[in-house]
């Protein structure tokens, strides 16, 4: 495993959710950077230091779709898992078209499942 392969960026504006994700994923041995807005995420993503990004969709100012657009426009290669509570097929379609690798609905997905998916994506 490469040294950077455990660095994960979590973009989540709801502090309670960001907190539990950070605690759980840190315990699983991942190195977590938490940002609470899409705006704050953009310069970090550009450094190219993350091996995976977990991104919410509904956020003020710069939302998840714009984050995905940014990654696409800058040709940054990084797997992005969308973790959201939006569930309309149009949202999923749009996110996937913009390059999201997976689309998970928070209230339907246990933490254990999220970890399983992250591990699977990182092993590729």
């Amino acid at each position: 495993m490469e040294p950077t392969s455990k660095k994960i960026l979590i973009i989540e504006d709801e502090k309670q959710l960001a907190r539990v994700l950070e605690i759980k994923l840190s315990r699983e041995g991942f190195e977590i950077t938490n940002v609470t807005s899409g705006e704050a995420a953009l310069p970090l993503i550009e450094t190219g230091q993350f091996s995976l990004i977990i991104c919410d969709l509904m956020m003020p100012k710069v939302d998840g779709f714009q984050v995905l657009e940014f990654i696409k426009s800058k040709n940054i290669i990084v797997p992005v898992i969308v973790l959201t509570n939006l569930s309309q097929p149009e949202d999923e379609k749009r996110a996937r078209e913009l390059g999201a690798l997976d689309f998970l609905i928070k209230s339907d997905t246990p933490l254990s499942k999220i970890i399983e998916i992250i591990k699977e994506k990182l092993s590729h």
Partner: protein
Amino acid sequence: MKNLILKQKVSLSLSIASLVSLLVVGIIVFLYIHSILIENKKKDILSSTTEQVHESNLIFENNQLFAHILGSETQVKGFLLNRSPSKKTELLNIFLGHTNTMKKYLSISLLDKNGIALVSTDPRLEGQDYSLRDFYKKSLEGEPSVDTAINKTNNQFGYYFAEPILGEQGDLVSILMVNVDQTQINNSIILSEISKDNFLMLVDEEGIILASTEPSRNFKSLGTLSEQEKNKLQNSDKFLGQDIVPLGYDLVQQGIRDYKNPIIVNFFDKDDGDNEMVGLSKLNKLPFYLVTEIRLEALNEQVFGTVFIVILVILLILMVLSLIVYFYTIQRDITKEKELNKTKTEFVSLASHQLRSPLSAINWYTEMLLDGNAGAINDEQKDYLDEITNSNKRMVELVNDLLNVSRLEMGTFIVETKPINVISLIKSVLSESKPSIIEKKLIIEESYDDSITEFLADEKLLRMVFQNLVSNAVKFTPLAGVIKINISKVKKYENYNEKIIKEDSLVFSISDSGIGIPIHQQKSIFSKLFRADNAKESGIEGTGLGLYVVKSIIDQSSGLVWFKSEENEGSTFNIAFPSSGMKLNKIN
């Protein structure tokens, strides 16, 4: 020099010839387009009247919802037999809540089986006897109906919508009576799209105009009446003893007498001295007709204007290009509809986000505690945390169901098909229920037609249908029961589970050996929020939304759903889709 003159002559005669030919082409095009536009306008009139039908029926549908709020038939009977002051206040509060929100009703009352008003939002109506009304007679036959009458207490003309509430043996227990102000119906007609350039009338079975966009015509007759008919109507309190003046629409009156299908009649109005065109359609389930009138003069002006512009454009093109080209376009501004759709979609997005976020937090933090991430927990603590997890799961399911329902009802959803393997889909849905199947030792018998490879379907919608049907079968089947799942191909006119299939179809059926649906409640099983009495008594959780979602999806994607059920024996739900696949059903 001579040659030059000759050339001029030739070119002059050529120009005249081309002008004449253009004129001929122009006339032909005029006649052609004129007939197309007139036909289109006629179609418009008929299709708009169908929308009106829908609007009137909504009032009735709300009534049925209201009967549902009252409770089960047993509860209604209980209320009628032992009325206590506290129960009465409670019911009145529900009534009042409903009138305040709907604002469409003058009053809502509950009558006993003898036609006496027991409780009403308008206290003046309590104790009134309605047994002489036509709607009471209809209610005795178990039929919902509408009656027009003047309300003697408040002296207002209105419509009475009556909905019988039947007991277990089909006997009349009570009647829900809703009084709608005539102006409400008038307003809905005036507000309707078509009234902007047309003239609308709501007409009863005798040809009397009850409401119209031109109130001076109210209570007049669409045709000639015999002296006997006149006397009868003037003495009846339905028409306030007014003079019934014939308006000379004899052909329309004739249409009402031998009504079969919507008709369009051209006629000359003696009063206005105009040529007019009238569309007549019967309001679904109601004893009323909707008559749409449009002046041919106005129509002609409109059509002529359009035709004139179109011809001008064509002639210009012909002159410029010297080619024979013609076309016409019909444009409609859909900006507003698009905006409305956007607002609806945004609402669902917002609602799902706001409702689900706290539920996600509860889920994840409870999961951390259960995993021992905050230290070891004892059995009792684990037990309590499991209760939290289960309750939260129910809440998540309820939110998911409600969101699905609102998407379906707002009509913003789309049917997006691709070839899928339906057998894998149902197997994947079954695997989701595996823990319950194992726990209840259920036997699953699957039979699939081997020749089924791929089927054009919207995977998400079909999954939702399967999930609801499978989870119901698993929920309602007792220990060691049997669930049978079948997918097969059926040819046109073949019989599948007691239904003749009208076209080549793919059919699905899910049978269980569960508690079944009581026969008298089978007609309500697809209603929103409805739960059968035995399901409620069994203590098995449910929202009453599952089968409603199933039916809405299937109706909107060109499918069919039907079922057979016997109490304590089990139920079989069947679905059929045309072999060509699921597709959005525009009619719904």
